[in-house]
């Protein structure tokens, strides 16, 4: 099979995953997001002083992140099991589509859905920002960086959800992925704890601390709200980290899915 055919097969699966998500009314969350953001902007403007921008950025980006993580988990965990339940997987795999292409295609489809969703939410954040501040400022560029970090976060969550769904039930996959998201959000504390723990226990904690995904470094929401700059090197390292971690989880999913008995 040539690489052009392989790319088109992955692209086809990705596009179908995206189309299915849209058909499942995933993008309806945008309505809730718009209501939340406009409501908060109006309310805070009425009852507080001088924190409208902070609230719009903090609340907007937190909502982007949480909505996205919830979507990533709940769609990600069903990507494989749903296809098996509906027996559509057998149709797909009976065609010249390899199992690994199916996994990678599903991953790209889900991340594509989230990128589109994030893009639309980002427009909402900037519109709300414009409404409360009446103009864009130079420091608003850090909001874009924080949004980019959120997209990187989604890459990892999607990969993890797919990894767990390759061998576990949807419910357990959701529990595992959400647990890793929570642990990963506290990863810096975990590594700080590892640094002050001695002996074999220290090595164990260190190993766990470096193995769980580091979501805390991918959270620049507070800095963006305050207008604090994010170092260029952090942007580079975070990008590399998210790509490598996603590649790790996806290759794990491929290895498991290759061995899985689908009969």
């Amino acid at each position, binding site marked *: 099979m040539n690489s052009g055919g392989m790319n088109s097969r992955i692209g086809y699966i990705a596009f179908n995953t995206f189309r299915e998500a849209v058909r499942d009314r995933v993008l309806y969350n945008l309505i809730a997001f718009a209501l939340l953001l406009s409501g908060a902007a109006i309310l805070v403007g009425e009852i507080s002083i001088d924190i409208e921008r902070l609230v719009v950025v903090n609340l907007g980006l937190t909502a982007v992140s949480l909505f996205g993580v919830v979507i990533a988990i709940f769609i990600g965990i069903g990507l494989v099991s749903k296809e098996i339940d509906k027996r559509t997987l057998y149709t797909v795999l009976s065609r010249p589509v*390899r*199992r*690994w292409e199916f996994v990678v295609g599903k991953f790209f489809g889900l991340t594509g859905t989230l990128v589109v969703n994030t893009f639309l939410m980002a427009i909402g954040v900037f519109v709300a920002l414009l409404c409360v501040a009446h103009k864009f400022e130079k420091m608003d560029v850090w909001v874009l960086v924080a949004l980019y970090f959120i997209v990187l976060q989604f890459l990892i969550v999607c990969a993890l959800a797919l990894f767990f769904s390759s061998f576990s039930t949807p419910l357990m996959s959701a529990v595992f992925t959400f647990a890793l998201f929570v642990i990963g959000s*506290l990863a*810096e*504390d975990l*590594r*700080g*704890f590892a640094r*002050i723990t*001695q002996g074999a226990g220290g090595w164990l904690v260190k190993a766990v601390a*470096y*193995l769980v995904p*580091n979501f805390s*470094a991918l959270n620049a929401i*507070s800095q963006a709200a305050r207008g604090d700059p994010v*170092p260029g*090197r*952090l942007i580079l*390292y*975070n990008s*590399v*980290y998210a790509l*490598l*971690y996603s*590649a*790790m989880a996806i*290759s*794990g999913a*491929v*290895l498991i899915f*290759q061995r899985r008995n689908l009969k």
Partner: protein
Amino acid sequence: MSATRRVNLVASAVLLFSMAGATATLYAIDHLRWEPAAQEALYVRSPKVLRRLSLGYTGLLADIYWTRAVQYFGEQHHAHSHDFRLLAPLLEVTTELDPKLLPAYQFGANFLAPKPPSGAGLPGAALALMQYGIEHNPDQWRLYYNLGFLYYTELKDYPKAADAFARGAKLPVTNPFMPILAAQMAQHAGEFDTARMLWFTTYQSTQEAQIRENAVQHLLALQVDEDVTRLEQVVEKYRQQTGKLPTSMGDLEGAGFIRGTPMDPKGHPYRLMPDGRIEVRDPESIFFITKGLPPGAEPPQPPQRAQAASK
């Protein structure tokens, strides 16, 4: 090689490479982000807000905040920083989330009270923390003991130290040394004996190895301080009797003031200096000593005192 096998090999290689790469990148990220400015932030200072956010899981949240306080103190101490501005708020949040978390009072007061770099140099905050602890745990003799210790060592307020020990001594479950400490404190007699009893009580009232080791180090340091004080008094007596300073320990022994060569607790002989002072031979070998040091030298501290929890 079959296609499946090839896919497995490639996926395994990608898995290993990305795992190694992700770990290395994370290591680099840590070195970028663990600069003081990035770490030193306590976004929610209100325990009431945190209590509501915790959805009732206040015990767990208190444990997390206590761990953060320990880490923060350890980090600042390790960096020889004199800036401990987040320590008191972290402890306040911890103890308000879980007022029964005794280690937060016992160790927290010890992090707060001593002067930097050993502690935050905030004896007032340490006092407030201990009083809050006693208010919520009035039957814990250890808290009265810690309060008395704080008054004695950091604030030099002997009547209040005596009062704290006396209140602790009246509890149904207490330590037998508490009434003795209260009496000694009230008389403010025998400084070394009192300090020795305080550290001995600390030693025998805990099973924590690091705290016991710290108490042993303090007891050794007290021994040195007492020896040096006594030997310098002997030197002064010799000078008054002979009109000149002794040139060696042999002079003091010959005059009948001492028997044999006096040794420090590590087994090294004390040194008699030309100006009549007494010095230990290896000042770095005995931590916390305040006497017997070369002029201008700081009392040596053990490495990583933060981890040893200083008490």
